[in-house]
């Protein structure tokens, strides 16, 4: 079953702290309960977005490496 995202944020080629900052901005542009898809190449984006989501009370639904070799992280806005 695939999860539908309300918005995609492409941070590929950007480095810490930009992916987290852009994620923080983008999450405000979707509704509560909706999912933000974040694409990233910075290896820190995985632990950093998880830490950020925990702090902000959002849910990381999944974080996976795509066959193309970049990260795809799904974050559900919870508040």
């Amino acid at each position, binding site marked *: 079953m695939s999860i539908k995202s309300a918005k995609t944020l492409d941070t590929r*080629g*950007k*480095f*810490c*702290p*930009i992916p*987290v*900052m852009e*994620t*923080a*901005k983008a999450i405000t542009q979707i509704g509560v309960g909706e999912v933000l898809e974040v694409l990233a190449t910075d290896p820190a984006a995985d632990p*950093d977005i998880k*830490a*950020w989501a925990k*702090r*902000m009370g959002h849910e990381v639904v999944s974080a996976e490496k795509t066959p193309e070799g970049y990260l795809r992280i799904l974050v559900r806005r919870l508040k």
Partner: protein
Amino acid sequence: MSERVEKRNKLAIIAWSGTADKLYPVAILSSAAAAGGWEVEVFFTFWGLNAIRKEMLNAPPKISADFAEYGPAVAQAIKQMNFPPWFELLRQAKAMGNVRVYACSTTMEMFGIKDKSVLADFVDDVVGAATFLERAKDAAVTLFI
């Protein structure tokens, strides 16, 4: 009398250094904190204060003398990464969160800086040590950089 202080999600930084290799950590940590809803207090003093004079922001960034030989390579890498200057990150941090930036009054006098108009536009206030201590006392993370 002792006062009980409850720690908060607050980052307090004394930004003492004036070289890019130390100012980047100040800006990166401040941005990450602001993105995560932390409060941030940054106190620029000595060479950190010198680095936020408007004319210094436009000058080529300095790097610690110990690592001077790496300077050109680092500058080149930052360019290639398309990474923003440290003060742009700090500006973005201020735009997105609760970030306050202070300039040290004693250093201003020492460097002949008469008022904050010659400093970067992201400076909120000119204050002294007592103000920073009061603002920083409940910070969960405090750094001297």
